[in-house]
């Protein structure tokens, strides 16, 4: 008996348990003792880790869903169909974590619905709220077949999926436009903070840069998730698809690097990168992790075509992306606001809790639903065939 219990206790389960206990305690502090007890936020740093990590990274890293669905549905790149559902699932869960995070962030969470009925069309944040809410609905719609096809009622299943298929393309198109809008609006949030944001990051094209950087980061996270699923969840994906993703990530990073450089030059901000300031340090960390190292590594075939190497390179991209978003939302503001902000453990613990919940949901979805092709020989019982048309048989 004890031996059996012992065998159930694995390293990851212990880690998950710790994340849940600390995260739930942090959540308790946030909602029952308030911001002062649960955060290091101040009048000088009104937005902190929850916005930087939870919202900016959460939405940005969920960008693969619209990218891959545009590639497959609209551009006919059928090659990526096998990873389509996984990328939509990642986006869907990513947006859900952001929705939950939103309740932590705002001071009056029971008024979360206010932006739906109280409009201010001049506000970037209003547009972000509306776009994210609408796009989460789109993602729910795009992901729904994976659940519906598992329902036991055949007639219901087939009727719903037939109508679903009829409007799918229109919804995908709307989803791509909505994503493009709010991925860039997230950068647009900081446009109004001119004079506060360090020149290495402030630009009148911040929104465009946010958009360009989100897609490679989202792809990198998808590569990571699929690699991990292949390693531990009995899933089989043609690895050359991921290799191609690697190539695509590199290409998109080069495009981003080009425009970021151009932007720095045209704003005459390049000089700030060579000053001895902490901002310059953060900037170079971002350049190294998000751009220099991945672009260099991904140009080698022995990195791209090796699952483990591709995985770690993607991890560097994701880390670099997170550095970028935290730089914009926290580090770039500290000097002008005359403050030094270090998040409290509760901010980190609650963010990690929400992310961990998303990861666990992903794991069980891959196990119980047809997200990625399974290794077992059992024939798939999917109503929608791989080509996206109703199966004839």
């Amino acid at each position, binding site marked *: 008996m004890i031996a059996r219990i012992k065998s159930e206790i694995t390293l990851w389960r212990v880690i998950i348990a710790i994340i849940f206990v600390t995260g739930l305690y942090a959540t308790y502090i946030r909602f*029952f*003792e*308030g*911001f*002062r007890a649960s955060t290091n*936020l*101040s*009048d*000088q740093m*009104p*937005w902190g880790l929850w916005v930087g990590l939870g919202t900016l990274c959460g939405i940005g890293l969920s960008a693969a869903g619209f990218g891959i669905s*545009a590639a497959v*549905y*609209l*551009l*006919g790149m059928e090659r990526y169909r096998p990873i389509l559902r996984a990328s939509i699932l990642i986006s869907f869960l990513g947006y859900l974590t952001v929705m939950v995070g939103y309740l932590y*962030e*705002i*001071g*009056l969470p029971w*008024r*979360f619905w*206010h*932006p739906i009925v*109280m*409009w*201010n*069309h*001049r*506000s*970037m*944040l*209003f*547009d*972000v*709220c509306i776009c994210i809410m609408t796009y989460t609905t789109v993602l729910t719609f795009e992901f729904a077949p994976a659940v519906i096809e598992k329902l036991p009622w055949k007639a219901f299943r087939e009727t719903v999926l037939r109508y679903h298929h009829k409007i799918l*393309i229109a919804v995908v*198109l709307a989803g*791509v*436009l909505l994503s*493009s*809008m709010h991925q*860039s*609006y997230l950068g*647009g*949030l*900081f*446009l*109004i*903070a*001119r*004079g*506060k944001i360090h020149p290495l990051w402030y630009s*009148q094209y911040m*929104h465009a840069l946010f958009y360009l950087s989100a897609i490679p980061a989202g792809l990198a996270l998808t590569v990571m998730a699929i690699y991990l699923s292949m390693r531990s969840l009995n899933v089989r994906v043609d690895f050359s698809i991921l290799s191609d993703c690697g190539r695509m990530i590199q290409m998109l990073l080069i495009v981003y690097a080009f425009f970021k450089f151009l932007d720095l030059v045209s704003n005459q901000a390049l000089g700030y990168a060579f000053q001895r300031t902490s901002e310059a340090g953060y900037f170079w960390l971002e350049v190294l992790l998000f751009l220099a190292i991945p672009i260099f590594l991904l140009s080698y075939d022995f990195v791209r075509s090796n699952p483990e190497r591709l995985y770690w390179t993607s991890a560097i991209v994701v880390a670099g992306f997170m550095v970028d978003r935290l730089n914009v939302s926290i580090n770039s503001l500290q000097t002008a*606001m005359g403050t030094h902000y270090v998040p409290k453990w509760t901010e980190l613990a609650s963010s990690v809790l929400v992310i961990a919940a998303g990861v666990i949901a992903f794991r069980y979805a891959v196990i119980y639903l047809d997200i990625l092709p399974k290794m077992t020989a059992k024939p798939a019982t999917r109503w929608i065939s791989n080509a996206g048309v109703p199966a004839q048989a």
Partner: protein
Amino acid sequence: MTKQKAMLIDIKRCIGCLSCETACKQLHGFSTAPEPTLSDTAFTVVETRGGTFVRKVCMHCNDPACASACPVGAIGKTAMGPVVYNADKCIGCRYCMLACPYQVPRYQWTKLAPFVKKCDMCAERVEAGKPTACAEACPVEATIFGDRDTLIGEAWTRIRDDSSYVPRIYGLEELGGGSVLFVSDVPFEKLGFKPAPTGNQPMPTLTASALGDSPKVVIMGGTILSALYWVTQRRHEVALAEAEEKATINRSRGKRS
């Protein structure tokens, strides 16, 4: 038509007696102990910059960054001039605090149901025809209240009549101007007045240009994507038709042989 009201703060006249601070705190029922900077219980403070007393207070911009930023429209400028906050709408996102170029809005960090706090230029008193509490309390007319146009004239008169004044009214045009005007005998840059990030342009123009582009981008993007989808579909159909044709030919060949 109601005339826009304003406050004129004369830094040269200020004697640092903190009457304005105290009057403000009394009006709002806060403890009257002076505070070093603005807080959720101090909507105005008198700071000392190199021996000069400088009042810090909401500038009540004509086109306020905070009002444009608020996602639920909880902040707005009234016809009389005050920039007021509607606590019933606020969700507590604190974007106004990030947006404000003067770093004025404060948050009730210790409360379980926290709200944004800032000077409302005594909007209710102003509506009732009374001056703001701080202007009423000032013993030396360093802060005066009145019609904005009249006060601008008064400010220029003071500048003209006393050559020690800097020939500039701060708040007249900066970031589109506002309902709080400053005159001073010490250059404003030396008193902690930061250069306006957008010159005389209101801050909301920064967001407006990006938001204004989005309908174009959406229409163009939507058209391009639809076109691409049409091409994809067409290619698919052509490929299908060709395959079918091939199959028919093969079948007929099969029959013949």
